[in-house]
């Protein structure tokens, strides 16, 4: 059940009506049942995996970790959570690398490599489970109620692709009785419409253009490779932030406030700022549960700085069991390292507002944007050879400004989308500055009509552009 499908619209409408109609004490139970229905609409059997892990984490957190603070206990709990992820997601990767190593040693060994079907959202609910056990193991009180915990684990808006929510962020919301007010309803619907527009109209329009450059065997020129990197940067932003928008909007319709996951990431003026704006809930997960323990372990060692690169490599590997993802993580690790060392003078924020500072800030923005977009080549490439091919095209200025794969229209579309992003960025505060967002008087009336017209156009565009409901990019993780 894709968020941008008619099925989801009907599911959401029914769930919303039922949820607010039944007595408050049954609402969480209903939401759990609906969440499992939502998850099992993809694969019934993996619902048991989710349920099994949830039961384990709840019981282990409540009856083991809450009573004993031994590190071994926590390690065991984490390993149990990691086991399905390793089995389903990384077996093939580990085995194929082992085979390659064995071949390098001159031994002929070709085992039958298993193809596994990846349970949807496994990377997300595994990370959520680990975070819960670590938090409980380090002093956070566990969920007392199994029902509350099952809801925390399975609530469908965040189940498949986040935001990765920590217990502290939702516990109080679960435990208190929720009500629906107009602002929640308006906010939820607005975010859902925005998300649908980003996904259906923007991301899905860019996808085939980008795909044509990443077709195996294509021989992209400089302009194709640059357009593909820029296009994919936008595609994945629109795609993933669309999912987050619909997730946050849906949760709000049921009275829950989720943390934001994106904050205009391509506005970042340093790699560090980028990670404070991109997939924010994952960034803080990596920071708190990978980077911080690693940097403590290597505190004072000359390898201390390398922990950043290692943490980002883990982040890359989490995205996919391929060396391209690992390299993408390493790329960002190195950028973050440069941010803290060699390029600190460029990336350090400044409060001054003189011409020199503004110029430096613009250069920092362009360097960050360029580096992030180049990094997407690793992320999107089918394999290392293809990533190398695209870098070769860019660095060698192959074919100059004449495309070899993309039609001129495709390059125009990608350029127009980037202009749109910059335009939206520059204009987003304008209505407020002009006093158009007033709640009363003639200006308020004009503003309300303007919003209504805007959302009518957005809805129309979603209907007109919706061909087949395509899966979100992050579903594969």
């Amino acid at each position: 059940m894709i968020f941008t499908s008619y099925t989801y619209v009907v599911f959401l409408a029914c769930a919303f009506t039922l949820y607010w109609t039944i007595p408050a004490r049954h609402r969480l139970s209903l939401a759990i049942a609906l969440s499992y229905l939502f998850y099992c609409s993809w694969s019934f059997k993996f619902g048991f995996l989710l349920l099994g892990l949830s039961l384990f984490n709840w019981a282990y957190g409540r009856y083991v970790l809450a009573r004993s603070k031994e590190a071994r206990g926590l390690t065991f709990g984490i390993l149990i959570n990691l086991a399905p992820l390793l089995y389903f997601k990384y077996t093939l990767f580990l085995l194929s690398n082992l085979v390659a190593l064995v071949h390098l040693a001159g031994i002929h060994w070709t085992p039958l490599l298993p193809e596994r079907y990846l349970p949807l959202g496994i990377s997300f609910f595994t990370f959520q489970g680990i975070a819960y056990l670590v938090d409980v193991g380090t002093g956070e009180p566990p969920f007392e109620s199994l029902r509350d915990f099952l809801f925390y684990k399975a609530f469908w808006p965040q189940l498949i692709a986040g935001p990765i929510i920590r217990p502290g962020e939702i516990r109080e919301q679960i435990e208190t009785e929720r009500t629906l007010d107009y602002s929640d309803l308006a906010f939820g619907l607005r975010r859902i419409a925005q998300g649908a527009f980003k996904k259906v109209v923007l991301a899905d329009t860019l996808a085939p253009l980008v795909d044509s450059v990443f077709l195996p065997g294509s021989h992209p020129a400089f302009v194709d490779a640059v357009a593909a990197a820029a296009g994919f940067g936008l595609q994945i932003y629109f795609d993933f932030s669309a999912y987050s928008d619909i997730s946050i909007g849906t949760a709000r319709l049921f009275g829950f406030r989720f943390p934001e996951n994106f904050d205009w990431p391509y506005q970042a003026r340093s790699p560090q700022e980028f990670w404070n704006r991109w997939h924010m809930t994952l960034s803080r997960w990596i920071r708190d549960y990978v980077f911080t323990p690693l940097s403590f372990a290597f505190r004072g060692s000359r390898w201390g700085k390398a922990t950043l690169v290692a943490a980002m490599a883990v982040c890359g590997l989490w995205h996919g069991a391929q060396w391209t993802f690992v390299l993408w993580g390493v790329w960002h690790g190195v950028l973050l390292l440069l941010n803290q060392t060699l390029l600190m003078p460029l990336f350090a924020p400044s409060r001054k507002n003189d011409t020199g500072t503004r110029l430096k800030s613009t250069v920092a923005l362009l360097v960050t944007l360029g580096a992030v977009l180049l990094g997407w080549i690793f992320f999107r490439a089918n394999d290392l050879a293809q990533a190398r091919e695209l870098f070769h095209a860019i660095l060698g200025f192959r074919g100059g400004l004449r495309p070899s794969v993309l039609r001129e229209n495709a390059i125009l579309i990608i350029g127009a989308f980037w202009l749109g992003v910059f335009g939206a960025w520059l204009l987003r505060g304008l209505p407020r500055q002009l006093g158009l967002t007033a709640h009363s008087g003639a200006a308020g009336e004009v503003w309300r009509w303007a919003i209504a017209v805007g959302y009518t156009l957005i809805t129309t565009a979603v209907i007109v552009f919706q061909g087949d409901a395509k899966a979100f990019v992050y579903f594969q993780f």
Partner: protein
Amino acid sequence: VIDVLRSRAFWRGPIPRFVALFVVANLLVARWHGELVRQREANLLHAETASSGPKAEVHFDRSTGENASAYWSYIPNATQVPLVALVGMSQTYAINDPKPGDQTISDWLDAGLKPKGVRAFGLAAPNLNNEEALLILLALLNEKKTQPQLYLYGLCFDKFRNVDLRPGYESLLAKNPELQKAWRDTANRFAGRFPQASEKMLRSLEAATARKKVEAATLETRLRDAAEKVSPMVAARTDLNAYVQGEIFLLRNFLFRIKPTSKRPIIESRYRMNRELLEMITDTARNRKVGVAYYVIPLNPLALNPYVPAEYEAFKSWIHDFATARGIPFANLENEVPSEHWGEFMGGPDFKHFRGEGHRITAAAILREFGAVFDRLAKGSVAP
């Protein structure tokens, strides 16, 4: 929820205004779409109109690739009579300034061949590329009744800039498992010689399979069908999408001052893939004992065209050499249709589409240039 709906904030906010505007927008779309359907019914290029007419009068796929399978039954039975499949782009069927009695190349060709006991049928679509031309060939080969004796393809240089199957052909592939198998086998057979084209074919198959899943009678399709009944906007979404794309195309032309004569250099990777696909078409047809014949389409001698002259010359030289080396009947009909028979497009002379007389002249040129091939077919021999 009821409290929210009763609240002053709700009624003063944008939501009721949005609902009102959305209803109005749906009514406007219903009116626009009704008019569009009426125009289509008046237009001969409409599948439903054609299928209700007499069978013998249909000599080409009038859905122009949008609903090709609806026209399969009109193809003369190749087990009873030698069949020529005429494949090409919009020039094959589009008539500028049409007059009553005007006929297309396919109509003229069929009329010219019929006395010899040979039949012709046109399978063309706007901007047809070689991946689609290969699909048409494999679809024809899929049944004995439609397996032609000659696959006659009108080559247009700028179509070598295009790749991908349009939704109509994707749907044709998606509906037919045997065709899918033939498509996959062909891709795999040529994977060593033409890896890029082969990979592209497999991707197209993936897309077609995904389309099949979407078109299958699932809960999602049932809900969408239900939504179509309630909202005219949902019902008209495909036409609205085409309209929006057309407007974006015009906006692009306006902003960048693009005219039909603006030079459009080849796109190397696409050009190479299309050449590979043409070789696949040739080999696939011959493996199945189907003859192939190619011609370079006529162009308006007075109109400036968007081709880079050196690239166009290189293309003609390549196709000539390729045909000669492989013994393929080939003709360059570039200068065949005099300037007075061409129409206008976007305020200037149309360099690719002619009036009714142009169709007759082109068909006559085909009959003349490939006369020997048609004679062999008439005698029951296999075309080269």
